[in-house]
Structure formats: structure tokens, C-alpha cells
């Protein structure tokens, strides 16, 4: 505090409320959204998630074609290459974590009270967060696709193959994958908002996706297709499954809707003290 001197009171505006105020403009939906997006950009968590996504997609996109034998279908067969260029279930983890961060960060750092003082009509905060999660998941999908193209295409060519999946099919894979990532990011958001704790929320999501899902899927194969990240690959037809692509889409919507509804319900009704 030594470098800071108390400020002269004469710098205070002559009348409270004299500064320019937005009035009713403060209630426009874009304002809480701007705050959520700035919060997302100005904290390290989302950047760590993005960095890990790039590293994961980059490494796997390089390793898979490089390690494949020269006659492997993966290098020339469009059907085999779909798994290389589609958004696989593993990528869903990053979207789930991003959603969890958006839901839990204000609770973790105690800034939820400040946020609700700025936007006391709570559904506006919830709506801004849902939009933020959606936009964040789409950015993750876009970055994953860009990384995949930047790494996998040269890696396939270096291994003696070529990009064989038609452009229209690639677009379909990526649109479905991005839609699935949005749904799973909302699943993460709902858990983060409902638990009101970054540690509990993100911990639960990590345990669920990295430990429970693989173990349970291996132990009880009948349920493997219904666990949180599996429907992403099924939706785009990247994984043989007991359920259809439409069923996988419905499952992702359910995974998105139920925790999000619970999380928003808690945000709307819970006392902040």
C-alpha cells in the first residue's frame, strides 16, 4: 500500500450518479454475454483446455498415420480415414471441461455475488453462460478440426497416402461433431453450475470421463454406448454401436438438457451468502 496515496476527495464527482450511465441499456442481453466472454478469455483455465486439446489432437493426428503400415487402409480408404478426421469421443472431454469451467469458476473464486449484483435478473446470467458455453465449444471444435487438418493431412501424405474422404463427408463429420461437442459442453456446464464448486465439479467430470466411463464400459459393454462421451462418435458414425446416430443425438441432448436445467435451477433459486 505504500506506493498508493489516498486519493483527494475533490476528485469525487460533484453528485453521485453524475457519470454517464447506460440506464435501461444495462438490461440488454448482450451485456451479461460480453462479461461472460471476457471472463472466459481473461482466466487461464479455458486456455489450458484449448492448449491440451491442440496437443492431444496434434499428437494423435501425427502418430496414427505415421505409425500405420504403408498398406494400411487408413492411408487411402475413405471409410477408414473417417475415424482419423472426425471429432472423436476423446475430444469431448475438452468440451466437457470447458463447460465445467464456465459453470464453476465464479463459485470457485467467490465472484458469483459480484456477477449477480451486476445482473440481478439471474436467468440473464444463465442464458449468457449457455451461449458462452456454446460459443466456446464451437471454437474448440474449430480448433480441433484446424489442428487435425494441419497435422494429419501432411502426416498421411508423408506416410505415402492421401486424403481420401470427400469434402462433403468431412463437412458432415465436423458439423455433427461440433454439435455433439456443444451438447457435451453443456453437460459439463450443468455439472459445474449444479455443484457450485470448481474442484468438485471438474473433479467429478474428470473421474466420470477418465475413470468411470472406461471401466464401466469395459465391465458392462451393454451400457458403453450410453455413457457421456460415447454418443459423440456414434453421432458421426465413427463407432459401431447399439444405438443409431439419431439415438446418439437424442442421448447427447439429454446429457446436455438435464444437468443444464438442474444447474440453472440452482443458479436461479439458491441464496448467495
Amino acid at each position: 500500500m505504500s506506493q498508493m496515496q489516498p486519493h483527494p476527495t475533490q476528485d469525487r464527482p460533484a453528485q453521485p450518479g453524475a457519470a454517464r450511465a447506460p440506464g435501461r441499456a444495462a438490461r440488454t442481453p448482450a451485456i451479461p454475454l460480453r462479461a461472460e466472454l471476457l471472463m472466459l478469455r481473461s482466466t487461464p483455465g479455458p486456455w489450458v483446455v484449448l492448449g491440451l486439446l491442440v496437443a492431444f489432437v496434434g499428437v494423435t493426428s501425427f502418430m496414427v498415420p505415421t505409425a500405420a503400415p504403408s498398406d494400411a487402409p487408413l492411408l487411402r480408404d475413405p471409410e477408414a480415414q473417417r475415424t482419423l478426421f472426425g471429432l472423436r469421443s476423446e475430444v469431448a472431454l475438452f468440451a466437457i471441461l470447458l463447460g465445467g469451467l464456465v459453470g464453476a469458476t465464479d463459485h470457485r473464486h467467490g465472484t458469483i455475488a459480484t456477477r449477480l449484483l451486476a445482473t440481478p435478473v439471474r436467468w440473464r446470467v444463465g442464458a449468457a453462460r449457455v451461449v458462452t458455453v456454446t460459443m466456446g465449444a464451437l471454437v474448440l471444435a474449430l480448433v480441433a478440426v484446424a489442428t487435425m487438418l494441419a497435422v494429419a493431412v501432411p502426416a498421411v501424405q508423408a506416410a505415402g497416402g492421401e486424403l481420401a474422404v470427400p469434402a462433403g463427408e468431412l463437412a458432415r463429420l465436423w458439423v455433427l461433431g461440433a454439435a455433439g461437442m456443444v451438447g457435451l459442453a453443456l453437460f459439463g456446464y450443468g455439472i459445474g453450475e449444479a455443484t457450485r464448486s470448481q474442484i468438485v465439479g471438474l473433479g467429478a467430470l474428470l473421474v466420470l470421463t477418465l475413470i468411470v466411463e472406461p471401466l464401466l464400459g469395459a465391465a458392462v459393454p451393454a451400457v458403453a454406448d450410453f455413457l457421456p462421451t460415447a454418443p459423440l462418435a456414434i453421432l458421426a458414425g465413427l463407432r459401431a454401436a447399439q444405438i443409431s446416430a439419431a439415438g446418439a443425438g437424442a442421448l447427447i441432448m439429454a446429457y446436455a438438457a438435464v444437468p443444464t436445467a438442474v444447474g440453472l435451477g440452482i443458479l436461479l433459486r439458491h441464496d448467495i451468502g
Partner: protein
Amino acid sequence: MDAIEIQGLTKTYAETRAVDDLSFSARRGRVTGFLGPNGAGKTTTLGMLLGLVRPDSGTARIDGRAYRDLDDPAGSVGALLDPTLGHQRQSGRTHLRVIAAATGRDDERVEDVLQEVGLADAAGKRLGAYSMGMRQRLALATALLGDPEVLVLDEPANGLDPAGIRWLREWLRTFADSGGCAMVSSHQLAELARSVDDIVVIAHGQLRAAGAYDDVIGERDLEEVYLELTSEAAAIR
């Protein structure tokens, strides 16, 4: 019309009645001290006033309206609650910019309030490196972002050095004299005695005294009167 009007406010947590049929008001042009022992219900009352806590019954209004119904809440009321809260890796400036964005204020206003609380030079530091006094000033800057006409401050002098406390006192006086309403919750009785025009004392969630400082305290010592008013609660805690 009083700037702040609390009428029959009641809140119960499980079996505990935190606030019990509480009524009082705070006026413009005055600094109102809000006193009570730990657990008396001060924070719960402020939470209900600011829409953070849902009352079981009663009303808490600012200029005749619930906080959430104000056209521009941040432009009407500035609140300082817990200064220790904030993302430790964000700078003070970024912390304020997020809140400014949420209230529809621009970055220019952020620089204005940083200057006003004397934090401009330290605005680029991460919150994790802030002293308690710096956090207190940042919290006050947050409250001032909307240039409000009503201030609700919970322990605003905590962590401030003597020069900072004097600055805060003079600042509050200027704020009230220019037509603002400041409601200050604090345990620092000596400082309150020098700052406030009106006083509200609660214990066990119930009103024990409210009125002009001189009417409630008279020629006696604030600490003496406060302990008398809250002695039952103090003995329990």
C-alpha cells in the same frame, strides 16, 4: 422517500432465524452505520437487500423498488461485500473490466474508478499479489463502477492503513453531502462514531435501536451503548 427501506424482513436457515421481522430505513445525504455482533444477521440482511438472498417474508427496497427491479442496478447501488473474493490470476484492472462489461460500463470508467480509489498504479498486478488494503480499494472501486447514488458497504475499512481509513471517512462524508446514501456495516466502533449520521443496531436478527446517532447515543460512548444493546447476544457468543 427513504433510499433504503427494510420492512418486516425475515429469513430462517434450517432451525435458525437469522433475521426476524426487521424494519429500518436509511436516508439520502446521510451515512448510516449498521451494527451488530457476529451472527446478528447483518450480512443476511444486506444479501436480501441486494437480491442475493431470498427473504421468507418482508421487503427490502431501494428507492421503492426491489434491487432486481431497478432499471440500472449498478447505477443505483454500489455494494462492497467480501473484498477477498476474485480470480487470483486476474489483474485488478481485468477484474473490474469484467464487472464493468456486466454493468454496461466501458473501460474508461474502469480507469476513472481506479484513479478514484488510488489503485491506478497497481491495477496491472494480479489479485493474488494484492494486500488486504489493495483488495479493499478494489472492492470499493467495483462498488463505484456504476457511479451509484446508494452505497452498501460491509466492513469497508478492513485492511486499510490509517491514511486510507481517513480517506474513506472523508470520501463517505463527501458522498453523503452530495446527496448519496451510504449504509456501512462495521465492527470498528471508534471509526463509525466519527463517520456516521444515523445508526441501526441489530442482535439475533432483531432491531435493537435505530435513529440519528445523537438521539441513540447522546453524550455516551458508542461502545458502551452498543454493548448494552447487544449484551444478551454478546454473552451467548
